[in-house]
């Protein structure tokens, strides 16, 4: 099997004699070769090989599901029954899932194979994968650089061809930002498109499960499987799921809006800015409508995001008390101190910072001045974004202000790290779908993504236009 085979390639080869077991062996070889990157916290080698044999048998019998031959890496925040799920946190070290997340359940039902569990920032809080309790993950293209975060391991697993696709979760950019820094495709669907059942919650009104892939088609088919209403998640949408795979052929033209403030932002790398301008100009010349508008709220996005997500996190993470599961400290003397010791010794510094900020903004006397204010700002941002999407199909933005930064470069300054999400949080604040398309190649040798935000449930059109961009403006791998 060739490196970076698309899933349709794999399926074709399966018809010509390749076995699913050989597909798994191929990925296991790459996983071993790049083990030092620390993308995987655990590899299910035996189980994957065994399951591959069963699926090979099903193929022979003509009973295989539509994902037979697809090998998937899971993020360590998505429950997978009978397997460890730890949120890359000491507090959940050794925790074994007793049920499957709906996304996992649906992928397995269609005969996909889960090959391992990927490293990430603790509780998905971070932009560099440096907050993992189980070691940093390195960018496969430059091992002195971070892969981005929080789904850093999932991005590297796809980047180095250790799986066909990987799952990630995206609360403020945790799929798109590492996709950009690793040079792969990433999609964060509309809020409610994919069930959150079994996803360990960070900020419930922002979190969405999504996909990383090297080929848009592979993300499309996986999204088709994991999307849709789920009785176990009341916020999951009953909106019908489009046949993403059948709608990938792009036709016609689109109307694109760009933000003057985003393209001229002092944090934006000048080369990325120049490429954005060139791309927008080329798209215009190709017949698409491009409009530059003013979005004066840009610098309020990250503050709004941190006020709201930390508040939700402080509530969500209160369940981790070390009583029914999780880390139990030996130093406690009574019930009060067991909560305190379990949590203080179990959580890492960034998680504690966010719980503290969230607890503060929800506390008596500060709620209106901080939390309620951010909720109002959320409405303002949402309404303004939806207004723009009435006359435009997509908003086009850089995914990240820079290419992958150095390991340790931003760990001393939390605010500097938060600004890595400058362009990605808008999609989560508004609940809109967004993708990062790996179009950019910097003179420093590193990749970067171009981001598109679409209207609610416009995933089919987003995927089709992403493929169009890859075909006409992409660098072949």
């Amino acid at each position, binding site marked *: 099997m060739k490196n970076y085979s698309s899933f349709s390639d794999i399926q074709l080869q399966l018809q010509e004699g390749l076995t699913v077991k050989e597909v798994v062996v191929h990925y296991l070889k790459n996983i071993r070769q790049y083990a030092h990157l620390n993308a995987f916290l655990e590899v299910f080698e035996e189980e994957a090989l065994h399951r591959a044999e069963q699926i090979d048998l099903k193929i022979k019998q003509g009973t295989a599901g539509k994902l037979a031959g697809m090998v998937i890496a899971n993020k360590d925040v998505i429950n997978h029954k009978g397997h460890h799920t730890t949120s890359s946190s000491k507090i959940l070290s050794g925790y074994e899932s007793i049920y499957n997340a709906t996304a996992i359940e649906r992928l397995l039902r269609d005969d996909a194979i889960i090959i391992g569990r990927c490293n990430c920032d603790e509780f998905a809080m971070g932009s560099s994968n440096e907050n993992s309790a189980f070691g940093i993950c390195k960018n496969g293209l430059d091992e002195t650089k971070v892969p981005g975060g929080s789904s850093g391991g999932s991005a590297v697993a796809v980047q180095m061809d250790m799986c066909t696709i990987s799952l990630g979760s995206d609360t403020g950019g945790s799929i798109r930002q590492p996709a950009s820094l690793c040079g792969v495709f990433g999609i964060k669907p509309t809020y409610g498109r994919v069930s959150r059942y079994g996803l360990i919650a960070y900020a419930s009104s922002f979190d969405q499960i999504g996909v990383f892939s090297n080929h848009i088609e592979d993300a499309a088919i996986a999204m088709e499987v994991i999307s849709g209403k789920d009785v176990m998640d*009341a916020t999951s949408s009953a909106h019908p799921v489009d046949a993403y795979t059948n709608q990938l052929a792009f036709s016609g033209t689109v109307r694109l809006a760009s933000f003057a403030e985003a393209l001229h932002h002092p944090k934006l790398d000048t080369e990325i800015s120049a490429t954005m301008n060139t791309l927008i100009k080329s798209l215009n010349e190709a017949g698409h409508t491009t409009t530059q508008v003013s979005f004066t709220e840009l610098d309020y996005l990250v503050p709004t995001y941190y006020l709201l997500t930390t508040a939700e996190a402080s509530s969500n993470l209160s369940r981790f008390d070390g009583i029914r*599961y*999780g880390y139990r400290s030996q130093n406690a003397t009574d019930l009060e101190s067991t909560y305190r010791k379990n949590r203080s010794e179990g*959580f890492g510094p960034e998680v504690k*910072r966010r719980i*503290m*900020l969230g607890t503060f903004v929800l506390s008596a006397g500060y709620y209106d001045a901080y939390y309620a204010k*951010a*909720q109002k700002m959320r*409405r303002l941002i949402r309404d303004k974004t939806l207004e723009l999407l009435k006359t435009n199909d997509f908003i086009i933005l850089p995914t990240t202000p820079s290419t992958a930064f150095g390991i340790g470069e931003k760990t001393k300054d939390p605010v500097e790290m938060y600004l890595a999400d400058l362009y990605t949080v808008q999609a989560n604040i508004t609940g809109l779908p967004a993708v990062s398309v790996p179009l950019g190649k910097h003179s420093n040798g590193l990749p970067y993504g171009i981001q598109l935000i679409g209207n609610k449930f416009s995933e089919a059109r987003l995927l089709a236009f992403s493929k169009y961009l890859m075909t006409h403006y992409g660098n072949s791998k």
Partner: protein
Amino acid sequence: MKVDDQLVDKISDLARLEFLGEEKEQIKKDLQQILGFVEKLNEVNLDQIEPLVYITDEVNILRDDVAEEHVSKEQALRNVPLRDSDYIKVPKVIKK
């Protein structure tokens, strides 16, 4: 907003966290910096805007109230860090 020891103590109490020695100085400094950053929202007049609470369009997703067993006792106890037969062990809660 000035972050002092008293505020850090109050918030860490509510959050059931503790910060000792250098950690306390660090969280004080970090909170001060992060609050300074998020206070940027004070520049905008939002008095006339209603808070946005729900992002989903789904409303009143109801189901029949039927009792079902999703997790067996054995499964529920599987991840308990400290147990005694069918019971979860915790430090003593009754004061002498």
